[in-house]
């Protein structure tokens, strides 16, 4: 057996139940999986399947009702709102369907925002932001405001923004849902390249041809994992029993 890649995400028996006045909705029902460094995972499922809820928990935007979630060695369970903000800032690069750039703000400022919250010195921020904007091919759009860019360009700004803090995972929520298909291919090419460079990517999507870009696809339905398949080509991913939802692995190994 080759050297085990570091485990980035360790989810055990995650459940999420929403309570409304007289209704109880189970969005996630005892979901367990693990994602290792360097993986490119697509989480698929029809709407209402619970994939958005799962994405929120993976992104530390929401907490599970029960179960444990360990992100890059940190247990996200009992954290305050501010601690969660900090986790998101350092460990997660978000890419949203609607891009979510600050309106009427330059691409540089948008990309620098997470670093501003992390307290990175301004000079460092400028250098880093420019580097990543060049990486996504927007070196000539540094002082354009977000509303002067096409959808594909805006999403590339969002990708640059997700990279500046060197996060443990990139978390993309329907990244091509709002852009034309030609540009969608460009975006996926960027993802592919980032993954080749060693970035761990988790992508939520309902489009099978987009999910095809990933090396591993987790299918969710009615709050449960119904299928977890790995493509045979490319780098071999260590397949452990955990992938099938078994959380029996000792913690010592998970926490590096």
């Amino acid at each position, binding site marked *: 057996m080759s050297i085990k890649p570091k485990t980035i995400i360790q989810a055990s028996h995650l459940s999420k139940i929403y309570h409304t006045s007289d209704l109880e909705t189970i969005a996630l029902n005892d979901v367990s999986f693990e994602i290792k460094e360097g993986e490119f995972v697509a989480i698929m499922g029809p709407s209402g399947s619970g994939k958005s809820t799962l994405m929120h928990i993976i992104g530390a935007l929401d907490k599970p009702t029960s179960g444990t979630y360990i992100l890059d060695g940190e247990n996200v369970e009992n954290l305050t709102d*501010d601690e969660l*903000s900090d986790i998101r*800032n350092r460990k997660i690069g978000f890419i949203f369907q609607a891009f979510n750039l600050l309106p009427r703000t330059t691409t540089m400022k948008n990309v620098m925002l997470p670093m501003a*919250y992390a307290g990175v010195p301004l000079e460092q921020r400028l250098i880093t932001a420019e580097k990543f904007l060049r990486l996504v091919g927007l070196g000539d759009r540094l002082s354009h405001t977000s509303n002067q860019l096409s959808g594909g360009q805006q999403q590339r700004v969002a990708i640059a923004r997700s990279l500046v*803090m060197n996060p443990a995972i990139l978390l993309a929520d329907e990244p091509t849902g709002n852009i034309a298909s030609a540009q969608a291919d460009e975006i996926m090419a960027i993802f592919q390249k980032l993954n080749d460079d060693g970035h761990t990517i988790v992508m939520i999507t309902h489009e099978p041809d987009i999910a095809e870009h990933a090396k591993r696809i987790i299918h969710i339905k009615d709050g449960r994992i119904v299928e977890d398949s790995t493509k045979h080509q490319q780098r071999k991913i260590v397949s452990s029993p955990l992938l099938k939802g078994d959380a029996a692995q000792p913690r010592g190994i998970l926490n590096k």
Partner: protein
Amino acid sequence: MNFIELLLESFNTLTLNKVRTGLAILGIVIGIGSVIALVSLGQATQTSIQNQIQSLGANLLTINPGAQRTGNVRTATSNTTLTEADATAIATSPQITTIASVSPEFSSRAQVTAGGNNGNISIVGATPAYLTIHKITMDTGVFIQDSDVSSIARVAVIGPQAAATLFPDGSSPLGQQIRITGQTFTIVGVTVTKGGSGFGSQDNIIFVPLSAAQKVLFGADHLTSVAMEAKSSDVMTAAQNEVGYFLLARHKITDPTKADFTIMSQADILSAASSTTGTFTTLLSGVAAISLLVGGIGIMNIMLVTVTERTREIGLRKALGAKKKTIITQFLTESIILTFTGGIIGIALGIFTSYIISVVSSSLFIVSPSSILLAFVVSAGIGILFGWYPAQRASSLQPIEALRYE
């Protein structure tokens, strides 16, 4: 994110929606502006009244005929109870030790003409004592002399404002003839301006010998007032009592509450006037404070709208790592910038307005530093107070809820 950056970012956000920002600021501008303008208007009025009263003379006591409190009865004859004999008695009696000089006076208003010009001017029948007691300074010519009083001379000393009314061409009034209620008087002197405006101006006045006022002009033998100068400001109360009991005895009145005269000191007049203008100032400030409050609520309203409108942005910021404190600070900074900008413009507007008022009403132009300081503190305070709630709301938005918000 350091403070300068936060400031720049807030400033940036505010300039993105200029109309709304402008309207929010306008409320504070009007609030602060009216506070400054109205407070300075009040203070100018107060100061000008005080100046005017003080210019009447220091250590001044004034006896006016008429009862202080006589129940509900106030007879017409009570206004004629003060006579020249009373004044002479006060001036000469060995019982009176605290009074330096006494000025018997008869004043009334009359129509005065000079050539084609005329005006309704205050006429004062005076003796030479008037000059020193009321601190009158002569510009040209001489004041009323003892000989003028004893000979009932038809001479007049004219105040600068009255002179301007009667001789608008600017010619020297000295030696000119004027007609007061049809009687011809010759001008022998012009006084220096004493300032003050409105009613009771010290400059819109004509002095004639006391005897001439009583016998020639108004056909009376009583006095309308007796002005007295106390020997020093320390004996004012003693003088007031001394003269009071002396006059009660002369008028054969045993019950002091039934006195047919009142003695007012400078301090009495000053405090009465001050309390009136003080009430006036308080009232104005109250009105201004209400408009400031309304301005503050305007800011809160705008900030709440902003929070709702920027829900997605707030969610994004939180998703990217903004902490509660960061969001609160950002929104508070925005509202403080709004109120502070409004405050500065308001102060400028307030000063400008009070300047215009002072020019138009030819009154004093006073802007007190304390009211400017107050306006600053209040505007920043309003920013914090009314910005807090929206900022709090923004910061407690959950990122997923906020990101979902359409």
